[in-house]
């Protein structure tokens, strides 16, 4: 469940970032995870290498989102970091890496045992598809309020 404080807390939410490109976004989020001892120092490099070969941009019904992540050996404990962006950056699409999608919200995953974290993944997917929540998240400028919005996904189920 996203509500779990171990998985998502205010220090892992960065709102209205003004950055140039996806690499800057990934660096900021990976550093959040690193500072909280959630990932190993090797995570960022692994993340970027992976994103270049197997991109994680997704086009949902109304929004572009990205879910960058690295192999489990670079992760110490399960978590998720989220950034919203003032100006969209381009991520390449998972389904067709030659194409890009404009992304204003990025969910960085740190997974250790995916089968046990299936609920987190499912909640996240439900969240992508809940356009009304994504809209609120993009407008939000308070981290606690942001987490309250995210947690509505659990209540909707």
């Amino acid at each position: 469940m996203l509500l779990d404080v171990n998985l998502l807390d205010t220090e892992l939410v960065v709102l209205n970032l003004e950055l140039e490109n996806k690499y800057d976004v990934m660096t900021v989020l990976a550093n959040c995870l690193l500072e909280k001892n959630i990932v190993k120092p090797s995570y960022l490099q692994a993340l970027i290498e992976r994103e270049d070969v197997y991109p994680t941009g997704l086009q949902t019904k109304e929004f572009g989102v990205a879910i960058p992540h690295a192999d489990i050996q670079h992760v110490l404990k399960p978590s998720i970091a989220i950034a919203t962006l003032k100006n969209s950056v381009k991520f390449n699409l998972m389904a067709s890496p030659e194409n890009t999608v404009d992304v204003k919200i990025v969910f960085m995953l740190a997974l250790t045992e995916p089968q046990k974290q299936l609920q987190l993944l499912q909640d996240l997917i439900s969240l992508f598809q809940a356009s009304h929540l994504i809209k609120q998240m993009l407008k939000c400028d308070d981290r606690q309020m942001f987490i309250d919005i995210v947690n509505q996904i659990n209540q909707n189920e």
Partner: protein
Amino acid sequence: MGKVKIMCVCGTGIATSTVVHNGVANMCKKNNIEYEIIQCKSLEVKSKLNTFSPDLIVSTTTISTTTTIPIISGIAFLSGVGLEKVEEQIITALKQTLGVI
């Protein structure tokens, strides 16, 4: 009916393939299809084709290995866009494998 073997593929074999695995398993249950599913990384597809011999591949990423096994995109499980159509494609492919259509 026999059992179908499905391989769910993504870039790291951990995140999106887990979601696809769960989605495909639910589809099989709903349609009373007996199944066996494995997850793997895109890079492992070549070796797993020999060891697992899947009937169908559902992938969220591009697969560079050439194979005659049908490959269906699993992106709809993530984006929600076109999920019904993909469900239909998967079930049709599985029923063809089983020789029931």
